[in-house]
């Protein structure tokens, strides 16, 4: 049964990490627009014509 101590410790660390990640996601507005993200991956800057100067935000 001693293994439970380790398991509890791991689960607590995981809970902390997930909570932190969740807060980060909420604060950066990840939940505010759920429609564009799905399409965005298809249209990265690769789609920009090679002739155009490379620009970044």
């Amino acid at each position, binding site marked *: 049964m001693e293994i439970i101590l380790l398991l509890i410790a791991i689960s607590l660390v995981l809970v902390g990490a997930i909570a932190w990640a969740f*807060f980060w996601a909420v604060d950066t507005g990840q939940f505010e627009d759920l429609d564009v993200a799905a399409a965005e991956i298809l249209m990265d800057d690769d789609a920009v014509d090679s002739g155009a100067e490379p620009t970044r*935000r």
Partner: protein
Amino acid sequence: MVACFHCGEGVPGASRLSTEIAGVAQPMCCRGCQAVAEAIVAMGLAGYYTHRSQNAERPRELVPQLLDEMSALDDAKLQRGFVLATDGGRCTTSLVLDGVTCAACVWLIESALNRVEGIHRFTVNYATRQAQVDWDPGTTQLSAILQVLYRLGFEAYPFNAAERQALLAKESRYYLRRLGISALFGMQVMMIATPFYFETWAEVEPQYQTLLLYLSLLLTLPVLTYSAQPFWMGAWRALRRRQVSMDVSIASGIALAFAGSVAAVVTRTGEVYFDSVTMFTTLLLGSRYIELLVRQHATSQLDRIARILPAVVTRLRKNAAGTTTEVVPLTQIELADRVLIRPGETIPVDGTVRAGRSTVNEGVLTGESMPVVKTVGDAVISGSTNIDSALELAVSAVGEQTFIAHVMRLIERGQASKPMAIRLANRVAAWFVLAVLSLAVLTAVYYLLRGSPQWLPATVAVLVISCPCALAMSTPTAMIAATATLLRRGVALIRLDALESLASATHVVFDKTGTLTTGRPRLVRIDTYGMPDESQVLALAAALEQHSEHPIACALRAERTAGAPQFATDIVNTPGEGISGVIAGEVYYFGSLAYLTAHAGIPTESLWALTDGADHKLAALASRTGLLAILQFEDELRSGARETVATLRAAGKQIVILSGDHERAVAAAAAGVGAASFVAGLKPDGKLAALASLQAQGAVVAVVGDGVNDAPMLAQADISITLNDAVDVAKLHADLVLIGAGIEGVASALSIALMTRRTVRQNLGWAIVYNVLALPLAMSGLVTPAVAALGMASSSLLVVANAARIRRSN
């Protein structure tokens, strides 16, 4: 036919326009599309065409007036209304976007705008079609940003909602964070509680039992202190006002279950209910969050309406060199300035005509369906539209003194006295909570008096099994379903509790001009005199009026006949009276009876003898030889108006028409739709008074209107409905906007309102029956808190399922 590569519309046969995209010349239907496509390619964003799933909208041409309006938005005085200054001297504002058809548009806009110098950040929300822009006013101007959007084929308007927007975003994050934490920790607590569920707890060694109990206590703490915050605060607010609310019952349930469990852990006697605490909190937060999302959706509908239209005006400056004109923002206009109003423009100020003669449409302000003549010395009011020719005005009132501002103050008065609908659920819930709390106390006292250790589980079971979940969710879930269904039928629900008022409305008040009628005259009769063919009359009249924007001219154009079109030359327009011109060598006159007497020399008496004296909606055609025809016009009823009124009457609503138009016109419309009572000739305050007297007699009144003159009445109504082509100020005070539906939307809104009310009542009924059955079981100690929580959850599920039935209605 070849389809335009940009917008997908057909390319006219003669068009040879094309744009080279990714090495292939693609056909374009118009210069507008071509310009946009070229701009997209030039920015290196041709990838948009590969990834889009919808065609673009056909862009509007960028005319000088639009450019003027855009540059007016740079005015610092105007910007104070909608631009927020942020750190580092930057500015931020929200924009409503038109023309966003698919996710690729969002990519296109963001990619293009984020490389404009001076824009710090430009983000687009696809769901709401809104954008947030953060820019450096020292480097670029708002108008420049709008122009870039324009070149890409999108129209954007700032709107005054930055603060409310921020508030809503904050609220939704507040609930989302708490919901996430509660679900996350709840899962951990439940995992630890698993041995309890399967009766294997006794097999766990005692030292691990202690460890697990303390661990679940620890894991419940964040849920209790952080996630359950809204319930603690709600309960505290209610108690401070000496009231009970659902939050009070929720908070006491959570508090008691937690306190009892802590006692059980410490003394190692009795059971723990940490899993019930976390599950309970998670479910409740979930239903609150969903309700919030619905409210947010309704608000974003409102923001589309509250867009700020840049007001510019052409100011005349007289100096030694003559008269110069300049386009300035309305905010810079002062009393006694001279302004020039071109035909087709909306008059932005109150003023007096100093030069020119024209007809002006005051329909949205007064309800009068025909334009009125304005000549030197006449007063014009802001918000009316100039029709025939240019007018020079001396400004007599600006800002707070204008007629519009006066109406705005009436609106405030109406709103202050607006009856608030009390939700049935809230009324029931208050009593319910009180009853449950007393029963819980009674249970606890009973078991304690008998010295039974059963008191804690029994009391917690009472509080949890009766959890007002089903009660709390009965209304919001039905509302969500109703909102979605309404939107699908083209009705936007702006104020959520409006549906309940609509279901219980006793009277429906309609405005006439623009609401029951289209506000545009329609030709109803032609009497010919010495001219055998009606289509010939129409062809002649249409030829004379071909360049006119007068409502009569529009009505004639709608009557296109099969005959060959005629062309008129030497046209002389006398605004407000009539028009003359030469067709095939012959002079013709078309206008009011008085005009024919004055210009064509036809004696008045002979004309009046032919009509019943209703000069208002008549126009006559004559040549040098004499009268040819008399045309009769009528304000056309909207299609579906009659059916809508019939449906409402069948549902037991009283129909009243309150209009600013003439008695005769209102009577005709009332007869046309089958309404029993009407009042004509009312000014905005008169309408407000008529409505107030109805309400004083105990009537619950729904108002359907579209004009500025209806706005005060809309603000005061129990429920207000406007059409999509209504003026902005009317929409701002509407509970329901018929965005995609015609006037029939009123009837479908009513049927959904009735169904929603029925569903809410069924849900409430179920919640009560469930509680009446479950409470005695809980009080008798037969139900453990875990089973109670399960009962509560399934009861809530039933409520959600029942509400979903609204969506399936047709």
